[in-house]
């Protein structure tokens, strides 16, 4: 593990030793035509990969790219064993000397993330390693006759046959396989390039260019190797150039990240000035991250969500292969989030450095954006209000206004005028008085007023709130309907009072004209009887008999009156019994359904009088043959319905009976409806809320 954590400690010396061994083998080789060139090239190529790989490995230990570069470098060194004059190293060099090509393919396919991102790539890398092992194996087993100059190669320990035909066949086969594998890898790289985002392309560009060219040249090399000539040499030189370029370009990429970090820091401090707007901060970050599509979102504490630079609500998108979110926090609390190209994750140092530097600016901007979000919310709130709104100076000049429905404006010109220009002088004075009071006291003021508008009087409520040292906000709401309802309620109350007075007057008159007169008569008759008691007992008896009859009549009249004041049966035995009593007294059949629930006393009384008055009306006017009464509870309401099969055509406003009923029902917040189509009976329906 130590070697993995500190790859230099092991692989640095190992590369030096292996390189030294290669140099020794090459310089002493009796079958190397150009030992100096081979030594220089071998060391240059291998150590380039090893050094670049170790730098990458150290910088990003979790990324396998550096490790694979080291592997390619050592693979190249293994190939140097073929320079040995001894059979075993020579054979081993031949057998394992091509594995670096597979490692190279592997390297290209994991770059830059460090791991294979598809199953196809996994199988392709497997095929590359298999080919890099088996192709040399078969080449050693069925080797050609003369492969080394100036001396023969050392003994090939794996040789099976030097049959020319077998050699040609296996060479053709493995060349085809190798070319296919390389072509597939090339195609994969091209595909990924096409799909890459601009930021990813920026990272891929140098390594892919050299790597893909190397794959192409390797393929060509495999094909032309059997046919030695100028072309072969050209290909080899080009291949060495592109192949060797890969570690340098890789290093350039790493260095580029470092430079980008510095440039990014500079960009942040240059692009994000002290008094930058949130939009400028976003632009600065885009510049620094070299991602023109990056978006900044600020955490909005009050709303518990993110907002964009305009202060609008912003939902963070889920991470995808192309776009990811980096959240910035301070003291475990969210500050902001940057939605950016996923490729920037391949440059973590860049991202970390830049976001770290930007965090301070973002923390500051978060407050500004919060204010903007709040202002946005208030603006939305104000716009959603159906009321008229005016900003007016202390001196009565209109500054601005908001009229969701311009038809509501009393006078369509507003800004530039004064309240005295637009409104009746008395009202204008009241408005200014209320507005100044709101400014001076710092508390809202409310006035109510009327305006003649389109030939009708409309009622308004004006609310005044200070909106600055010298201006106030006037919010106007039309309350005509509310006033109408209020007046209706007051009228209803007055009618209830009048009805009560009228009922008492009627009661007094009934008592006076009825029972009282009878009692007076009884009193007079008793006095007469008393006078006749001795001289004319027969007359006295007659008078007493008359008095008894009068008393019985008076009693009956008193009972009737008492029933009119409040039905005793309702108090004593409840609504059901009281309705039964009403039905029994009615001169036509009455069917009663319900009540199906217990009603509060006030509603019971109202229900009783609705049925009583309706039955009286049926008897008087409806010419009905039957009546159906229903009392029920439904959805928190008591429903009372009296329906007859009479002639209909009843006028709900006729007489005081129904109006009195409507008032009684309204006093309990209920409604009374009368449906009476001509010829189709009358239906009186009261609906009274139970609470």
């Amino acid at each position: 593990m130590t070697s993995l954590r500190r790859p230099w400690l092991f692989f640095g010396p190992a590369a030096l030793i292996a390189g030294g061994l290669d140099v020794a083998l090459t310089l002493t080789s009796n079958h190397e035509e150009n030992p100096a060139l081979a030594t220089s090239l071998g060391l240059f190529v291998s150590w380039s990969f090893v050094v670049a790989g170790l730098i990458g490995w150290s910088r990003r230990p979790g990324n396998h790219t550096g490790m694979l570069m080291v592997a390619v470098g050592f693979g190249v060194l293994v190939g140097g064993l073929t320079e040995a004059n001894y059979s075993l190293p020579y054979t081993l060099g031949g057998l394992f000397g091509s594995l670096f090509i597979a490692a190279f393919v592997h390297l290209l396919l994991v770059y830059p993330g460090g791991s294979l991102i598809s199953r196809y790539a996994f199988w392709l890398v497997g095929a590359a390693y298999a080919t890099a092992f088996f192709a040399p194996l078969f080449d050693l087993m069925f080797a050609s006759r003369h492969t080394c100059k100036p001396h023969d190669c050392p003994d090939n320990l794996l040789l099976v046959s030097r049959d020319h035909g077998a050699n040609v066949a296996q060479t053709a086969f493995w060349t085809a396989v190798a070319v296919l594998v390389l072509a597939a890898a090339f195609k994969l790289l091209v595909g990924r390039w096409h799909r890459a985002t601009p930021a990813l392309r920026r990272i891929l560009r140098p390594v892919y260019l050299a790597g893909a060219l190397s794959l192409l040249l390797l393929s060509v090399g495999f094909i032309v190797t059997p046919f030695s000539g100028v072309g072969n040499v050209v290909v080899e030189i080009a291949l060495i150039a592109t192949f060797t370029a890969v570690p340098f370009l890789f290093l350039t990429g790493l260095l580029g990240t470092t430079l980008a970090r510095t440039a990014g820091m500079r960009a942040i401090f240059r692009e994000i000035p002290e008094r930058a707007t949130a939009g400028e901060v976003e632009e600065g970050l885009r510049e620094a991250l070299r991602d023109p599509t990056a978006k900044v979102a600020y955490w909005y504490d009050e709303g518990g969500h993110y907002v964009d630079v305009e202060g609008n609500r912003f939902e963070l998108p889920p991470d995808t292969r192309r776009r990811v979110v980096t959240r910035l926090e301070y003291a475990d609390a969210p500050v902001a989030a940057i939605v950016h190209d996923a490729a920037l994750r391949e440059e973590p140092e860049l991202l970390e450095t830049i976001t770290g530097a930007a965090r301070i600016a973002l923390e500051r901007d978060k407050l500004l954006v919060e204010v903007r979000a709040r202002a946005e919310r208030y603006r939305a709130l104000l716009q959603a209000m159906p009321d008229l709104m005016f900003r007016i100076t202390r001196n009565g000049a209109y500054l601005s206004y908001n009229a969701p429905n311009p038809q509501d404006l009393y006078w369509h010109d507003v800004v530039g005028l004064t309240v005295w220009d637009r409104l009746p002088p008395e009202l204008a004075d009241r408005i200014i008085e209320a507005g100044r009071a709101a400014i001076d006291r710092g508390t809202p003021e409310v006035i109510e007023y009327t305006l003649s508008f389109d030939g009708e009087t409309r009622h308004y409520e004006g609310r005044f709130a200070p909106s600055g040292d010298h201006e106030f906000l006037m919010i106007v709401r039309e309350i005509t309907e509310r006033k109408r309802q209020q007046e209706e309620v007051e009228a209803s109350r007055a009618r209830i009072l009048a009805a009560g007075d009228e009922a008492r007057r009627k009661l007094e008159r009934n008592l006076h004209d009825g029972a009282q007169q009878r009692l007076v008569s009884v009193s007079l008759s008793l006095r007469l009887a008393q006078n006749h008691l001795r001289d004319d007992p027969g007359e006295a008896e007659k008078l007493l008999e008359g008095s008894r009859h009068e008393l019985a009549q008076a009693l009956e009249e008193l009972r009737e009156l008492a029933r009119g004041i409040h039905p005793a049966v309702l108090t004593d035995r409840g609504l059901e019994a009281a309705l039964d009593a009403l039905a029994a007294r009615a001169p036509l059949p009455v069917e009663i359904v319900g009540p199906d629930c217990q009603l509060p006393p006030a509603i019971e009384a109202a229900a009783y009088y609705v049925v009583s008055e309706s039955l009286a009306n049926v008897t008087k006017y409806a010419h009905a043959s039957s009546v159906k009464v229903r009392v029920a509870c439904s959805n928190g309401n008591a429903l009372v319905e009296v329906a007859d099969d009479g002639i209909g055509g009843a006028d709900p406003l006729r007489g005081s009976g129904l109006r009195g009923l409507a008032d009684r029902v309204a006093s309990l917040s209920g409604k009374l409806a009368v449906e009476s189509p001509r010829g189709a009976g009358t239906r009186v329906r009261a609906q009274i809320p139970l609470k």
Partner: protein
Amino acid sequence: MAETMDMTVLIVDDHPSFRASARTLLEAEGYEVVGEAENGIAALAAVRRLHPDLVLLDVQLPDLDGFQVAARLGKLADPPAIVLTSSRDGADYGRCIKESGARGFVPKADLSGAAIAALLVA
């Protein structure tokens, strides 16, 4: 009592039962009931026609009330004596009775020839 004997009386009340009872009672006590009227207008006409000595006048009448009738009768050249009556208590009418020009007030339940005579001699 002798002063009231043969005194002619007009009974003005809208309730026939009271008129009948009052007639019986007063006649039994020596008054001569010369007529009855059921409202104020009829009462004024009856007084002009019958010239009664006394009008027993109910306060509550369907057209003119008893006080209005009393006021009009008071303007006649030879006005009859007027005694107001009602099933209500006299106190219910406050000063109206005193200011009406009537001799006094007898509650209907206390009506008797003696009660009327007491008012007439007072």
